[in-house]
C-alpha cells in the first residue's frame, strides 16, 4: 500500500514534480502514465527513498519515506531506471548480493533465489557472468534481485523499455502475476496501450502534475471519450507520448 500526498521536487529552477497525490492499494496495478520528462521517474525515485521530497509526504505500508527510509526500503522491491548489474558476478551472485543486503542468508536465501530463477525462466543463465547478457536477460536479473526479499510493494520504472515483443509479453504476464499474489504494483510507462492493458488504476502525469486519476473507465467518463487513447490526449492536451 502506497500513499502519496502533495509530493514536490525541483532541480535548481526546474519544477520536476509538483503537488502529486495518489494512492496505490494492495492487489492492484497502478500505472503512472505520462510523456517523457513529465516527472514519473522523479516521483518514483522519491518513493524508493533515493531523492528527498521538498514538500509533501508519502507512506509505504504506513512508514514515512522521510522518517523511516530503512523500513520503507525493506518493504519495496524496485526496478529502477538505472538497472546496472555487476558484469564479473554471475546472475546468482548478483541476486545473492542483494539478498544479503536485505539481511537474508543461508538456505532460506538460496531457496528464494532458486524459486526466482525458475519463476523468471532463467536457470540456463543462472551461473554465467552477466557480462554480455542481452537486454532481456539483464532485465530478468535486475527483477530477480529486486524481488529477492519478497517485498509487498513493487515499483517498476519503465519495465518494458528496450524489450522485444516476446520479452514485453512475458514482462506483462509477470506484472499480472504479482497482482495475483496480492502485491501493490506501481509502474511507470509512457506507452498508452501497455497501461490500458494492465492497470486497475491510472495516474496521468504531465509537466510534473497529476492531470487525471482513476480507473480506465473513470478516465473515459471524465473526458467523454470512448477510447482511452483519446481520453489521454484530452487530458494532457497534446499527442506526445503516444507510441505503438
Amino acid at each position, binding site marked *: 500500500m502506497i500513499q502519496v500526498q502533495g509530493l514536490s521536487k525541483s*532541480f535548481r529552477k526546474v519544477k520536476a514534480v509538483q503537488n502529486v497525490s495518489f494512492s496505490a492499494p494492495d492487489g492492484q496495478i497502478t500505472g503512472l502514465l505520462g510523456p517523457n520528462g513529465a516527472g514519473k521517474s522523479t516521483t518514483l*525515485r522519491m518513493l*524508493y*527513498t*533515493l*531523492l*528527498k521530497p521538498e514538500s509533501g509526504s508519502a507512506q509505504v505500508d504506513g512508514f514515512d519515506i522521510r522518517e523511516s527510509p*530503512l*523500513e520503507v*526500503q*525493506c518493504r*519495496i522491491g*524496485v526496478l*529502477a*531506471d*538505472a*538497472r*546496472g*548489474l*555487476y*558484469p*564479473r*558476478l554471475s546472475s546468482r*551472485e548478483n541476486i545473492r*548480493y*542483494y539478498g*544479503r*543486503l*536485505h*539481511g537474508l542468508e543461508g538456505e532460506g536465501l538460496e531457496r528464494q533465489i532458486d524459486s526466482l530463477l525458475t519463476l523468471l525462466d532463467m536457470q540456463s543463465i543462472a551461473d554465467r557472468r552477466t557480462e554480455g547478457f542481452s537486454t532481456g536477460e539483464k532485465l530478468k536479473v*535486475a527483477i530477480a*534481485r*529486486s524481488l529477492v526479499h519478497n517485498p509487498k510493494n513493487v515499483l517498476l520504472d519503465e519495465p518494458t523499455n528496450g524489450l522485444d515483443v516476446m520479452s514485453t509479453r512475458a514482462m506483462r504476464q509477470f506484472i499480472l502475476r504479482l497482482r495475483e499474489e496480492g502485491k501493490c504494483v506501481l509502474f511507470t510507462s509512457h506507452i498508452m496501450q501497455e497501461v490500458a492493458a494492465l492497470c486497475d488504476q491510472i495516474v496521468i502525469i504531465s509537466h510534473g502534475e497529476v492531470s487525471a486519476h482513476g480507473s480506465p473507465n473513470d478516465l473515459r467518463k471524465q473526458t467523454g471519450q470512448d477510447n482511452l487513447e483519446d481520453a489521454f490526449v484530452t487530458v494532457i492536451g497534446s499527442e506526445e507520448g503516444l507510441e505503438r
Partner: protein
Amino acid sequence: MKKILVIFQKEMVDNFRDYRSWITGLFWALFGPLLLGGLIMLIGNTVRDTLEESLHLPVSGVENAPSLIAFLEQQDVVIEAAPEDPESAVIAGDINVALIIPPKYSEDFSTGKTAKLQLVFDSTRQSAIADINRVQDLLEGYSRYIGLLRLSLRGVSPEVIRVVQVEELDTATPQSQALIFISMLPYFIIFAIFNGASPVITDATAGERERGSLEPLLINPLPRGWVAIGKMLSAIPFATFNLLITLTGFAAIFRLLPVEDLLGIQIGFDFSTLMAIFLICLPIVFLACAIQTLIASFTKTTKEASTYLPFIGLIPSLPGLALAFLPVKPALWTMLIPTFGQQILINQFLRFEPISSMNIVISSVLTIFLSLVFTYIAIKLYEGERIITG
C-alpha cells in the same frame, strides 16, 4: 554493521576477478624496486669502470714532452694518438678528453718558462667527468712535482710556495653515500600503496556509477554511509598487498644485487627493518584508501577517476623524492604532515638512526585522524543526493 561486511566481501570478489586492474596496480609495486635496481647497476658499473680501468688519453704532440708522457705512463695512463681534430672528436663524443702538446712546449719547458698545454673536454658531459678530473689532477701533480724539483735546485725550500696545507676529513661513511639511493625508497613505497588502491576504488565508486548499478544498490535497506565504508575497506587489502610486494622487491634487490661490489658500500635492509617500515606505512594505506574513495566518488566515470587518482598518489610521494637531495631533520613539524613524517621515519630506519617513538605515534595518529576525516566526508557525500544526480 554486518552489511558492511557484505559490501566488503562482494567488492573483494568483484575486484579480484578484475585481474587486469589489480595486476596494473601490481606493476607499480614492482616499478620502484626494478628502477632502483637498474639505477644501482648502471651507476655501480660506471663507478667501477672508471676506478679500475686505466685511463686512455689521446695525446697529440707526444714527441714534444717525453718526460710528461713518461710521468703519465707511470700513473697507469695509456697514451693514444689523438685524432686529427681533437675538438670535433670531443664534441662528437668519440673521446672524453684530449691533451694537445704544442711544439713550443719543449722549448719553454727546457728554458724554465711556463709551458702551455691544452686540454680539450666538455664539462657538461656527466660520463666524462671522472676522466676529466683524473687528467686534470695528474697534470696538476706533474706541474707541482717539476716545480718543487726546480725550487730545490735553486736552494729554495718547497714550503715557500706551500702557504697552507688542507687536510680533508670527510665524515661520510660508505653507508651514508648509499643514502641518496635509499632516500628514494619512501617515494616508491608510497606510490605503490596509492596505486594498489586506485584501480580497485575506481571500479567500486566511479565504475558503479558508470554501470548504473549505484542507484539500485542504494535502495537496499542499509545506511548509505556503510556502502562508502565497505567500498573503502575493500581497497585496503589490495593496497597492503602492494606495500608488501614493494618492500619484498626492495629487499630482494638489495639481497640479490652485489651492491657492495657495485657501489663499494653496504646497505642494511634486514627483516626487522622491513617489518618496521611495513608497520609505519599501515596508516598511509588507510589514508590512501580514504582519500581516493572520496575523490573517486565525486567523479562520474572511471575515465575521469583515472585522470585524477594518479595525481593524488603523486602529491604525497613527492616530498620523498625531494628528501633524496635535501635531507630534513625529523623535527616535530615534519611529523605533523601525513606521509611526510613517515617518509622521514623510513629514512631514519634505513640509516640506523635512533628513532623517537613519540614521532612514530604522532605521525601515525595524525595520518589516521586525517583518514577518518576523509572517510567522514565520503560518508556524507553518499548520504546526499549529489551521489545520484551527479
